[in-house]
């Protein structure tokens, strides 16, 4: 399909247009694709947000996960018939949690597990406090004041007065609404805390403040084993997931992939090595450029660094400048600062790539890795955060710990296409088995069932 069909017509606003840049003069080669200018505007098709596509239905996933898996979901849901669920978080748009709930809630409801999604309200002071909480739970320096505690509790209490909890299961996402659990005794619901953030080294005082609330829940869910805390309640592991039917991940016509490559000056006749990520030092884009330069001494390839964050984040702009300086005048380094709605274009670039890199120095889970694996791409990734859950070294991808290691793997994978193909195929299967939204729907259904009283089968069942 064409990306054009989903786009809202609009003018090109040159004053704030994201740009595609390379720091290079036109290539000196006599043959090959047209020379890229040192800086040029993105094609007009990506300058305005597209109309959101319709939400997929369960049956739309049948061709991906198979009838047997759809049947399993329906069976698990049938046991829950009549039970209702409420999901509560702190934002309706933007951010991974809202994006995930936008897909999860309709699928659960379609499975006749009516699921209501409510968003808590709060003033700027509340969100300033919870933003600081978020950073402190990730380990940032923070002094928990009495005032911050009062603001947190006051807004949770205000929301409690406004909200009703008539459902059988209540799922609270992240710390912002965590204190809503104070009303648990007045309800008959099972309460679950879904923590999407890394609690492996939280600010101690803040964690001691939050811990009594968390211990009131019937269960907690974390995105990684290492994020969990010692708690007296059962803790479950739900990996983050991708939607294979989203704009970022759905299958694309080759003609569209070709158009995107043409628009961005990417030559599909030569190997393409890509990293998709914000221009953020923790993603080490400069390290990727260095690895590419080391590898380029041995193998021909282009490097595409596609991301965003340079226009709305001052640090992102600095990092983008550092990347351009590191790229120097190499015409084969293509740096794309894309607006956030360019999911289809990112998808096309990933699909056109020969290899995908995610050389993060620190990472939560790394959904860009999941996206690359899903597209069957041989993937080179930093062995940090949740990446080793996805990239099993030499089986579903390769893990690296340095620029030199990354360079070697680029050389190796480009010169051993059979091995590259094998890990790419296994990587896709790994995502299919463990990291798709349908697997997450199944996890939710299993957990709801267990909390509703369905006893897990003994091992020898």
């Amino acid at each position: 399909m064409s990306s054009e069909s989903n786009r809202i017509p609009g003018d090109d606003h040159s004053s704030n247009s994201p740009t595609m840049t390379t720091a290079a003069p036109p290539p000196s080669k006599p043959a090959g694709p047209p020379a890229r200018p040192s800086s040029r505007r993105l094609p007009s098709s990506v300058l305005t947000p597209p109309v959101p596509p319709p939400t997929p239905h369960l049956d739309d996933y049948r061709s991906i996960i198979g009838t047997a898996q759809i049947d399993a979901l329906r069976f698990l849901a049938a046991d829950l018939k009549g039970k209702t669920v409420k999901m509560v978080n702190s934002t309706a748009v933007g951010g991974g949690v809202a994006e995930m709930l936008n897909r999860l809630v309709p699928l659960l409801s379609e499975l006749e597990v009516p699921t209501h999604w409510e968003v808590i309200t709060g003033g700027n002071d509340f969100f300033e406090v919870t933003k600081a909480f978020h950073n402190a739970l990730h380990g940032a320096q923070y002094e928990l004041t009495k005032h911050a505690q009062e603001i947190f509790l006051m807004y949770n209490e205000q929301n409690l007065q406004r909200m009703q909890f008539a459902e059988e299961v209540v799922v609270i996402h992240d710390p912002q609404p965590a204190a809503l659990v104070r009303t648990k005794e007045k309800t008959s619901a099972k309460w679950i805390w879904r923590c999407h953030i890394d609690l492996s080294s939280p600010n101690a005082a803040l964690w001691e403040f939050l811990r009594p609330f968390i211990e009131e829940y019937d269960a907690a869910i974390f995105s990684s084993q290492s994020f969990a805390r010692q708690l007296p309640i059962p803790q479950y592991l739900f990996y983050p997931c991708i939607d294979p039917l989203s704009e970022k991940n759905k299958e694309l016509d080759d003609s569209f992939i070709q158009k995107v490559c043409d628009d961005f000056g990417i030559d599909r006749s030569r190997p393409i090595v890509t990293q998709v990520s914000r221009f953020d030092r923790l993603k080490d884009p400069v390290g990727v450029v260095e690895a590419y330069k080391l590898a380029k001494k041995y193998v021909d390839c282009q490097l595409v660094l596609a991301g965003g964050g340079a226009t709305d984040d001052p640090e992102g702009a600095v990092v983008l400048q550092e990347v351009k300086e590191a790229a120097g005048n190499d015409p084969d380094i293509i740096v794309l600062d894309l607006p956030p709605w360019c999911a289809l274009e990112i998808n096309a670039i990933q699909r056109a790539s020969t290899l995908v890199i995610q050389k993060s120095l620190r990472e939560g889970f790394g959904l860009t890795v999941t996206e690359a694996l899903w597209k069957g791409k041989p993937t080179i990734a930093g062995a940090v955060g949740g990446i080793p859950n996805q990239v099993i070294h030499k089986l579903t991808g390769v893990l690296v710990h340095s620029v030199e290691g990354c360079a070697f793997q680029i050389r190796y994978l480009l010169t051993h296409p059979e091995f590259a193909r094998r890990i790419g195929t296994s990587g896709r299967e790994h995502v299919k088995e463990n990291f798709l939204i349908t697997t997450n729907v199944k996890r939710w259904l299993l957990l709801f069932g267990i909390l509703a009283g369905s006893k897990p089968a003994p091992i020898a069942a």
Partner: protein
Amino acid sequence: MATAEQQLPLRKPDKPFYFNTSEHLLRIGRERAGTLAELLRALRECPDNSIFQHTFRTLQEHHFIRQGFSNDFAHWSLSACHEPILAEQLASVDVREFTEIAGLRARMVEIVEDFLQQHPRAAARPAHEPFFFCAADLVVMPTPFVPDTLPGFLDALRQVSVHSIHHHFIEARLRLKRMSNDFSQWLEEEMGLRHSALAIERIDIYTNTLEGVRQQIGRIVGQVLN
């Protein structure tokens, strides 16, 4: 092998084959290990569900890998502790040789104990990353497939999920308490296909993906039908 069975008329089974499947939820356990000594302690103390998760169940989660993946303890010994000898020894443990978790646990403990006796300095060396023990909460479910003929069995085998193959072919030992699997048991007891049952039992799950296992079972049953 199946040649003799190909010449016999097929028996009508008294009982159909009930294809079930199982799904699991991962619970994060209390035990974690940052060294091999801690791994040994946790192996002795963790619940049966944890041993099950990191051996039987992990095979299902990684069913698409043909080589190099056996169980989580072996994988961690190599990737986080850089102990290839221990990793090879742990990887050589075939879960299908055990009909009870207790026996499997004892074998894992024995291997780590022996290794640490021979390599005492390895016991306290910090791993690159900790091993977090998890446990599987299991839910067994029926499927629509209840064949009572051999062609029906073959047709169903091709349509069920690989989770169902894992349930009947690998996990079945813990249920049957014998060195067999649900497919072989049904083919032998209900259809009188002893040679086919033995041939299926001999399929190597460590050099095949679960799809490969499905295809091999299909070939063996198909030979009888042909």
